[in-house]
């Protein structure tokens, strides 16, 4: 047990370049903008987040300290919070403000989502949970103005190593979300005896439809297959952890380990997830759900893999340019 603890402590002391965390930071900044800007454009900020005297549809009684400090859900307080949300999102995008920026974003978005919980979704808390992980992570160590202005290399892109454990926590959070969502899909429509009909009925229900979807009746067997895969894939999310374990211990023997590393189980799982998120985005209006969740995928890959992919892309573009010349 003591040996295991020492191995865990050593693993968590590991350092690596911050590229995945920086991409995660940028994606969460975009997610905040995708949350707030459509609300402003559709003119629903007052309707949903302000108290009745200020244009809201109901009396609100949020218990977040920041809302209380600003005097309650008034027009001025909510305008300040939304403004701070937009500014902090832009700072996350350009990477300015180190850990203070995600801390402000985390508290502002938590306050906004606390205003009227009945108008929220599960992705709200995934966004704020992700922002908290950015508070723990030095995510402006690269791809940021912080790195350009204050970093040791004074360059926008830097390979300075930072703590790797925040990236592990992002991956763990992703696995927890999918696994617990999967095991709580207990409605019989998700089960074989319910005909695996959940996605068929979910697409027909009016709440989240992007457009008329009565055509799903013509592809019912496909929706059944998608339902079964979705459920199995979500419940199987811990396979990601297994895939990472196999990658970290690739020198050890074992056919399953070798197979997992050969096919890159981690990437296969990610590809299935991203495919279903794309399908969801095309057929249902779930706001920033897919973008927020997809942000967490960015931490599935190590800096070296991003660097290699970038080199390949650059070489390919360069070769194309040479041919044109």
């Amino acid at each position: 047990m003591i040996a295991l603890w020492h191995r865990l402590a050593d693993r968590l002391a590991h350092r690596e370049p911050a590229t995945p965390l920086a991409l995660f930071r940028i994606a969460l900044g975009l997610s905040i903008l995708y949350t707030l800007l459509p609300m402003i454009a559709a003119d629903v900020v007052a309707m949903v987040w302000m108290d009745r005297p200020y244009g809201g549809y109901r009396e609100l009684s949020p218990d977040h300290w920041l809302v209380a400090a600003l005097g309650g859900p008034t027009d001025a307080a909510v305008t300040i919070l939304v403004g701070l949300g937009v500014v902090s999102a832009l700072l996350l995008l350009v990477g300015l403000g180190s850990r203070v920026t995600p801390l402000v974003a985390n508290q502002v978005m938590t306050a906004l989502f606390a205003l009227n919980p009945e108008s929220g979704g599960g992705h709200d808390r995934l966004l704020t949970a992700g922002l908290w992980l950015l508070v723990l992570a030095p995510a402006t160590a690269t791809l940021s103005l912080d790195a350009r202005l204050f970093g040791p290399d004074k360059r926008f892109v830097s390979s300075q190593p930072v703590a790797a454990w925040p990236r592990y926590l992002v991956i763990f959070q992703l696995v927890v979300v999918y696994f617990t969502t999967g095991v709580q899909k207990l409605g019989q429509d998700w089960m074989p005896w319910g005909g695996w009909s959940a996605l068929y009925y979910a697409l027909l229900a009016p709440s989240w439809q992007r457009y008329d979807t009565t055509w799903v009746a013509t592809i019912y067997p496909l929706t059944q297959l998608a339902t079964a895969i979705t459920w199995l894939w979500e419940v199987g999310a811990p396979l990601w952890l297994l895939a990472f374990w196999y990658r970290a211990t690739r020198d050890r023997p074992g056919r399953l380990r070798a197979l997992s590393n050969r096919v890159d189980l981690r990437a296969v799982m990610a590809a299935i997830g991203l495919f279903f998120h794309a399908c969801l985005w095309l057929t249902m209006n779930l706001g920033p759900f897919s973008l927020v969740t997809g942000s967490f995928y960015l931490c599935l890959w190590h800096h070296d893999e991003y660097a290699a992919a970038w080199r390949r892309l650059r070489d390919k573009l360069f070769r194309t340019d040479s041919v044109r010349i």
Partner: protein
Amino acid sequence: MKHLRALLVLLHVLAVSVMAFPAPVGAMSKKDWATPELQETFQGYAGALRAVGLPVSDEGLQAWLWEAGNDLLTVRKAALAPFRPYLELTGSEQGWRMFGTVNRRPAWLVVEVGDGQDQWRRVYEMRSDEHTWLREQMDQERVRGLVNGYSWLNRRKSYDQLSVWLARRASVDFPEASHLRIAMERRRLPAPDELRTQGMPAPTRHWETRYSLDKYR
């Protein structure tokens, strides 16, 4: 230092895991358990267990689940207590219950304005391309989330509050109208064959409420 770091990371992992541990949070009410959707679900599970040779009755399974669910919530509450302040402060207190059950009898929000002579004109219907008053607002995902609760015929108080808000807007947007009528039209979602051959079934009306618009002018 590395041991302290490992301990703190482990505490975070524990907090998130306890919070996310599957539990019937917000689902332990006799009223909810009596809905046709849940009753069908219980019957489906009991049938599946009988199919593999377990002698389980529908009622017996429900009674056991009721007891186990309440016990689980008690244990969860106690286990979560030390982590709550941390999870609340950091915005991480979500338990990930998304699309657990699918609504097979959803209701569509409809709004109509009238002249006081029982002549009504539909101005808004959820997801309609024909009745599109306030569509931009009503289609926004925050408002969708709100109305989704009504679609299950839940949150009646909130529904009434939104209705008053809509009546206020209608009093400005429809100066010729004297009344507003709002309702939830519920439909049983048909099976694929039925949908292909007969289309959507006729709805039943629920929660119909009328407002005199003069009150808001």
